[in-house]
């Protein structure tokens, strides 16, 4: 039996390697600019800046993780046939714990894709500092600053402190993900322990594992603890970036290169001007409209008067009644003139 299990593992590993190599060969043959069907983003970092091969490798992390999962599940299945661990809860726990790693690979993989951007940036930053001969003199946050480089030292201390804080919070975040691992395994164990539960294939087992892990993750992600740590992580990362930007701007100013703050300032003014222009246009349009409305009203009045005047003209001349008090012809003429005068 042990030989059978070993043979199986050898065969499986050969398959897994073959599969992985095939994917890599396929994707490496892609022409630059062709769409990557597994396009995955990174947290605020331009993917274009990364080497193509590295991007492809990370894009395929999901399938590779699944390959690892299959390997562990198959190993567990092979061993399960030998030792009947289901009769022993501790042994079952040991079997299930084999599934921890793939979850970490996926979740931490997404996170490290984003965190990679940060660390990559930091490394470039530190290298640049070293090249500029500044790293050797970089003060710790506890050291008092003085001299002509005092302001620069203060900036560096602030940046160091921010990076330190980010690292600490990132560790707290990773610890939460580790908790999800444990809780997910526990949920999977519960699912497998349900009366009559049968798992007939590796894929069925995989789907069950995904369900368990996602349930555990959702519970964690909606907890107060996760909310606090996630918020702190985002804030800490932004603090580091902000300080880096400030430092870069300082260097740009010294070199006479336009800075982002200046561009922002210009953009803000342009947008404000556009708003004012649009508002002015609306006011003018409203004024125009009210002028047109006034003219319309005046025309309507004139039309009514004209109609009344025409009616008066075609009105049959009434013969003065005997002893009546009708207007004289001269009086009618005056009335007509008066109406005509109004039209002016």
């Amino acid at each position, binding site marked *: 039996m042990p030989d059978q299990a070993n043979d199986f593992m050898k065969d499986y590993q050969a398959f897994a390697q073959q599969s992985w190599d095939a994917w890599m060969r396929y994707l490496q043959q892609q022409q630059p600019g062709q769409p990557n069907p597994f396009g995955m983003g990174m947290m605020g970092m331009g993917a274009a800046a990364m080497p193509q091969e590295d991007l492809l490798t990370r894009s395929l992390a999901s399938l590779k993780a699944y390959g690892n999962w299959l390997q562990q599940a198959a190993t567990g299945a092979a061993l399960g046939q030998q030792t009947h661990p289901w009769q022993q809860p501790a042994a079952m726990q040991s079997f299930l714990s084999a599934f921890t790693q793939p979850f970490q690979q996926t979740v931490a993989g997404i996170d490290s894709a984003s965190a990679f951007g940060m660390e990559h940036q930091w490394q470039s930053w530190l290298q640049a500092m070293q090249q500029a001969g500044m790293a050797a003199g970089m003060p710790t946050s506890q050291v008092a600053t003085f001299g002509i480089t005092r302001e620069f030292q203060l900036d560096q201390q602030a940046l160091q402190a921010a990076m330190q804080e980010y690292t600490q919070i990132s560790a707290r975040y990773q610890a939460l993900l580790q908790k999800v691992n444990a809780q997910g395994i526990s949920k999977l164990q519960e699912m497998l322990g349900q009366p009559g539960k049968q798992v007939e294939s590796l894929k069925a087992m995989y789907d069950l594992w995904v369900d368990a892990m996602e349930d555990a993750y959702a519970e964690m992600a909606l907890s107060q603890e996760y909310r606090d740590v996630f*918020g702190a992580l985002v804030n800490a990362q932004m603090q580091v970036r902000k300080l880096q930007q400030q430092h870069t701007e300082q260097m740009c100013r010294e070199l006479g290169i336009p800075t982002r703050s200046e561009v922002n300032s210009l953009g803000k003014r342009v947008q404000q001007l556009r708003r004012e222009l649009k508002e002015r246009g609306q006011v003018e349009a409203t004024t125009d409209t009210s002028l047109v409305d006034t003219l319309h009203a005046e025309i309507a009045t004139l039309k009514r008067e004209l109609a009344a005047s025409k009616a008066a003209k075609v009105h049959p001349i009434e013969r003065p009644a005997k002893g009546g008090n009708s207007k004289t012809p001269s009086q009618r003429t005056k009335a007509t003139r008066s109406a005509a005068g109004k039209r002016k």
Partner: protein
Amino acid sequence: MQNPFHIDPQQAFNEIAVFQRKLAAGLQNLRGLGEQDYANTPREAVYREDKLTVWHMKGNHKPTARVPVLVVYALVNTVWMTDLQEDRSLVRNLLEQGEDVYLIDWGYPDGADRWLTLDDYLNGYLDRAVDAVRQHHDLDAINLLGICQGGTFSLCYTAMHPEKVKNLVTMVTPVDFRTPDNMLSHWVQSMDVDLFVDTLGNIPAELMNWVYLMLKPLRLNQQKYVSLVDILDNPQELKNFLRMERWIFDSPDQAGEAFREFIKEFFQQNKLIQGDLQIGKQPVDLGMVTQPVLNIYATQDHLVPPDASRALQRHVGTTDYTEVAFKGGHIGIYVSGRAQREVAPAIHQWLRSRS
């Protein structure tokens, strides 16, 4: 404890072998497929301003509806989810029903749009887009169909410009942003959004995508691609898959100021239902929305939980309120087979009875 795992090593080996075979055979199908097109329904631009375009969608028949409907999409992702492909298109289905459909395509903000506020979007772009459609039809008021954040925008717009909206349809629209099951909302509560926007400027699309993927990390980053192997030998399904992938990652950046306001005022302070929301100089009171409202939500929506949408009924001013529960998710409500059969006819029937 019984052994629930009934797979012997040979069976496991066979399963892996099948997986491997599918993978190898499918690679050739993946090669040369290239970029998949979407948005194939004929259309004509009727209004453009900066990066915004209002499209008039053209069906095979003349519309029978007298009042056109303007689709207001979210600023995240693109409006082409409503017209992904010929047999999965809310737009085509609405046109087939006889509706006259217009779409707002917000475009892709860049540094020049960094300072656009919600006031610029709603009382500026959206208002002028509505005016353009009204003028095109010589109508005082048109129908609005708001989707997700675009639904929230449509509600705000209707409250501020009620005379220009005849009927309002909202789809998977968040109204109460603080329901306990709203993961996105939960995550941003402790975020310093001022520091965030001041640092990043416009919010990169990659970051938005990352956040959405983290809502269900295993399903969206691994299980989905594992399942892809099962369709590698089916070119048509593969194209559908790639088209959807294109849409998912074809995301615009978010204009910084508008993002700041949306997170603060809506997600963190939930002002839309608290009643003290103001866009620009105008107060937004949902009680002012007295037009007929059709509110469609998805029962399995992981982005906008049903309770977040259903809250509308308690806050809207209209006496003509209809609610439709769609059995599916946030995306399935546009692209699933069920959606093709149910959603457009429901919207059309509702609009027709109020024309």
